[in-house]
């Protein structure tokens, strides 16, 4: 559900990034550079070379130093006038060879390197292979990594174009040059046609152009934002020009300085200005501030500006390090505004946002892949822990609604409608408590456990229906909801698994029955939190005490390892809880104090230790319960656990004798099995027999 939403977001983002990378690769591929390498021409034919040497008029001028060759080899040279000279193919081969060697020795290649320049293409093409494209691609990928920003920027770079203003600018420059010439006419006349005049004129043009560009950016655009951009781009050049005016730099040195400025102050100035005016520059196309695109674009820009200000050079910005440095900034920006990325409402949306925020936050601090895996696992565990109960409660609510629908469909009596309303109240109260306080996940994770919740609701409803004053018109007394929430609270307690579901039903039914008969005692309305109710507090204390004893008795093993002497769990524990609740109806004041509860806890632990020491032969679970019930009122009343082990064992022994005597007369008075089932009739179950009476 919601987890899926978060995961889907991550998956989509991953695909998005991959798609961008592929697009970049394709775009890069579409403009790859190439060299043109030409195969060498066929080896020259010696006779052809000889023809060229012999026919070239320049080689045989009147004062030519090699003219003797024509004479020496006249026997093998054919001269056909304007058709040229060449070797007679009928002359001896040896003579032909000698002539070729003589000609080659006399005439080397006469083509100057300068003449070949226009044909030297390979190096020229290589000029286009630079790193700028790589930087652009990296920037694009980085922006896309943040999801959306680069696409936006690259799609709107045309807004920075100045093509339409060219004519105006040229005109303005021309005007300024004219004014410059007018102002410096005498100097120009004096220096014209002297050495360096060209450089001075170029200097004047450059200075004038820069002056115009910086001081009159309105010629480029009416928009303040574009004017700011022009200023930021031109200003460093102007400063450079001013600083270098007195320096005698050659063209290469000047070019180097311009490049430095271009990659340094110009680039950083443009970036800063672009950021400052981003919403104006891009008009209404810039993403809304609170939108996903706006958040990541702003974050990227901020990172870019910070980088630019720190490094001051474009080349230092678009490096692998930039990605590493910008990444956390973007991730944190996303983490701070997950609502912009996961829109909607409801629990699952909140979980999706939380998932995204946590993921982004984790990613922003991750340094290594193993660490990432660990972070994600931890985050997933935490998310599951926090949200699982929401899912489970949702499931419980769904089951409840189904149950209510069934009941609605099965009856049409007025009471049935009231009953449904009561059920809704009770169930909602219980479920709300689970939702607020959390719950052992195992309780609601299976349909059988959901049925358990419904059974508890049914128990409460039955008790309510049979208790005068608990139904008000068509609704229930607020105490009913309090009781329901209280029951839910002690089922949700930490060590609830020490008691089985069936025994919890008995405990709940007993607690509800007591509560109905003893208003405001076990589940007081005065308590704001159901967990503060006396019944809940007592149950938690007893369960905690039982867990402590079981843990100690296990001697390092699992608490419930069925070691001899381990008694207080399951049915015995449930009976002890019910006995305590019984006592609470008459000793509520004492049990509400810390002293009373601590004394009771100490007594429980004393009995547990005694059972462990004596063994089942001397202290069985029935004996334990008997002793607990017999002495608990004294312990609670005095606030001290002062009962000696001998006295406990003596009472147990007396009880055993009395039980043997009474066994033929009645049911074991301490057997809670006859507690009515949720749908059964109420009856008195507690008829204690005193040790003294038994003895007597």
């Amino acid at each position, binding site marked *: 559900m919601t987890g899926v939403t978060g995961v889907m977001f991550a998956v989509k983002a991953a695909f998005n990034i991959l798609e961008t*990378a592929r697009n970049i*690769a394709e775009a*890069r591929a579409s*403009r790859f550079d190439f060299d043109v390498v030409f195969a060498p021409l066929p080896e020259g*034919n010696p006779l052809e070379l000889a023809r060229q040497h012999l026919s070239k*008029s320049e080689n045989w001028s009147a004062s030519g130093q090699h003219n003797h060759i024509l004479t020496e080899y006249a026997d093998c040279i054919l001269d056909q006038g304007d058709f040229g000279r060449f070797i007679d193919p009928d002359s001896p081969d040896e003579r032909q060879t000698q002539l070729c060697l003589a000609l080659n020795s006399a005439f080397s290649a006469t083509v100057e390197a300068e003449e070949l320049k226009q044909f030297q293409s390979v190096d020229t093409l290589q000029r286009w292979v630079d790193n700028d494209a790589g930087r652009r691609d990296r920037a694009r990928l980085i922006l896309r990594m943040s999801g959306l920003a680069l696409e936006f920027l690259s799609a709107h770079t045309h807004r920075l174009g100045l093509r339409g203003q060219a004519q105006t600018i040229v005109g303005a420059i021309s005007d300024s040059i004219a004014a410059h010439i007018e102002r410096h006419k005498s100097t120009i006349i004096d220096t014209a046609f002297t050495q360096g005049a060209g450089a001075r004129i170029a200097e004047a043009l450059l200075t004038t152009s820069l002056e115009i560009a910086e001081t009159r950016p309105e010629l480029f655009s009416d928009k303040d934002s574009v004017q700011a951009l022009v200023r930021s781009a031109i200003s460093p050049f102007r400063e450079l020009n001013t600083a270098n005016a007195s320096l005698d730099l050659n063209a290469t040195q000047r070019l180097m300085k311009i490049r430095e400025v271009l990659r340094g102050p110009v680039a950083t100035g443009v970036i800063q200005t672009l950021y400052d005016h981003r919403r104006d520059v891009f008009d209404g196309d810039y993403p809304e501030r609170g939108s996903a695109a706006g958040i990541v674009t702003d974050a990227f820009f901020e990172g870019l500006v910070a980088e630019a200000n720190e490094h001051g050079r474009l080349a230092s910005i678009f490096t692998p390090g930039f990605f590493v440095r910008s990444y956390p900034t973007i991730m944190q920006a996303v983490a701070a505004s997950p609502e912009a990325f996961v829109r909607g409402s409801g629990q699952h949306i909140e979980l999706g946002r939380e998932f995204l925020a946590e993921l982004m936050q984790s990613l922003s601090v991750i340094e290594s892949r193993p660490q990432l895996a660990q972070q994600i696992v931890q985050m997933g565990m935490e998310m599951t822990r926090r949200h699982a109960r929401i899912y489970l409660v949702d499931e419980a609510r769904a089951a409840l609604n189904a149950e209510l629908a069934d009941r609605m469909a099965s009856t049409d009596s007025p009471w049935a409608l009231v009953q449904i309303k009561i059920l809704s109240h009770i169930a909602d109260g219980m479920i709300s408590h689970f939702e607020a306080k959390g719950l052992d996940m195992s309780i609601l994770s299976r349909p059988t456990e959901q049925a358990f919740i419904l059974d508890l609701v049914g128990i409460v409803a039955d008790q309510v229906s049979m208790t005068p004053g608990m139904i008000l018109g068509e609704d229930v007394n607020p105490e009913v909801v309090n009781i329901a929430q209280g029951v839910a609270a002690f089922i949700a307690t930490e060590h609830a698994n020490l008691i089985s579901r069936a025994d919890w039903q008995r405990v709940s039914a007993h607690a509800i029955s007591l509560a109905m008969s003893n208003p405001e005692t076990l589940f007081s309305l005065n308590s704001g939190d159901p967990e503060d109710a006396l019944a809940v507090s007592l149950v938690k204390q007893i369960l905690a005490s039982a867990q402590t004893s079981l843990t100690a008795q296990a001697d390092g093993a699992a608490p419930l390892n069925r070691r001899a002497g381990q008694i207080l769990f399951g049915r015995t524990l449930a009976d002890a809880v019910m006995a305590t609740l019984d006592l609470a109806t008459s000793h509520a004041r004492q049990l509400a104090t810390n002293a009373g509860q601590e004394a009771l806890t100490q007594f429980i632990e004393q009995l547990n230790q005694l059972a462990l020491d004596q063994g089942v032969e001397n202290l069985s679970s029935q004996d334990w319960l008997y002793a607990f019930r017999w002495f608990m009122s004294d312990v609670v009343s005095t606030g001290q656990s002062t009962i000696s082990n001998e006295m406990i064992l003596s009472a147990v022994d007396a009880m055993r004798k009395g039980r043997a005597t009474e066994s033929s007369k009645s049911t074991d008075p301490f057997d809670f099995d006859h507690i009515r089932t949720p749908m059964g009739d109420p009856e008195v179950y507690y008829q204690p027999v005193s040790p003294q009476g038994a003895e007597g």
Partner: protein
Amino acid sequence: MKHMRQIAIAGSGLAMLVACETTPVSTGPSPEATVDQINAIKAQPIEEDTSSARVEKLNGLLATAESKMAETVDKPALNLAWTFAAMTAADAVTAIPGQSTEAFSTAAGKTLNYADAASTACLDIGASGIDTRQGNFCGMALAVRRLNDSGKAVQAFTTASSAKDWASSKAASEGFGQQVSGNWAAYADDASQLALSEQNQTPFTRMALQEACEYQAAQGQVNLLGNPSMEQDVRDAKDAYWSAAASAAAFLDIETDAPICESEPDSRSCKRETEIKLAETCQSL
């Protein structure tokens, strides 16, 4: 059949994007990589591989490029790159010796077709739509298209002159001269229309020189100008050759300082001197 024009186009790899190094992306073959492979095959020494195996590999790359061309019809820039790769592959096939006439003709036909397609794409995109790098493609494709018939003329000249068919040799030379005045000049119009930079026009200039050099070298191989015959058909063939070579040299701004060209620029002697200057230029490359 020997392909007279040999162009090796080597894709120089850009530095791998650092960002891509950390993001494994599989995008299949790229035009760049394909051209690299084509040039790698072409660069292999002959003894390492047989011609037929090379042709087979090149045809495989050609098929890949053709397939990608079909896939990228909606992406003009990428389609142009793949068309360029296909043209390169087909051209490389024509440069492999020892092929059948049919195979050579097929490859040569494809070279021209793809050069035409790329050129048309460039002209469709227009001067405002192509960047500097695409300008390189366009400059190259247009060069191949405009120079293709020159190669055929050289081939015809070689065939005829070798067979001492001087009338056909003369006609072939005249055909070469018409290419210079027609298609070569038309390239200048194309380049102007696309506002190709000087750098982007360099491949054409270099390839045109290569064609002229091939022509001049073919003459040397068949020794037309060293033929002592004074028969009219031979003389006519020589004159036609000199005229065509001189016009190519002039197109390429190859000039001689010979005094005869000052006084009689249209004379046979001036053309002879110019042709020698062209030959020297070719030998100096």
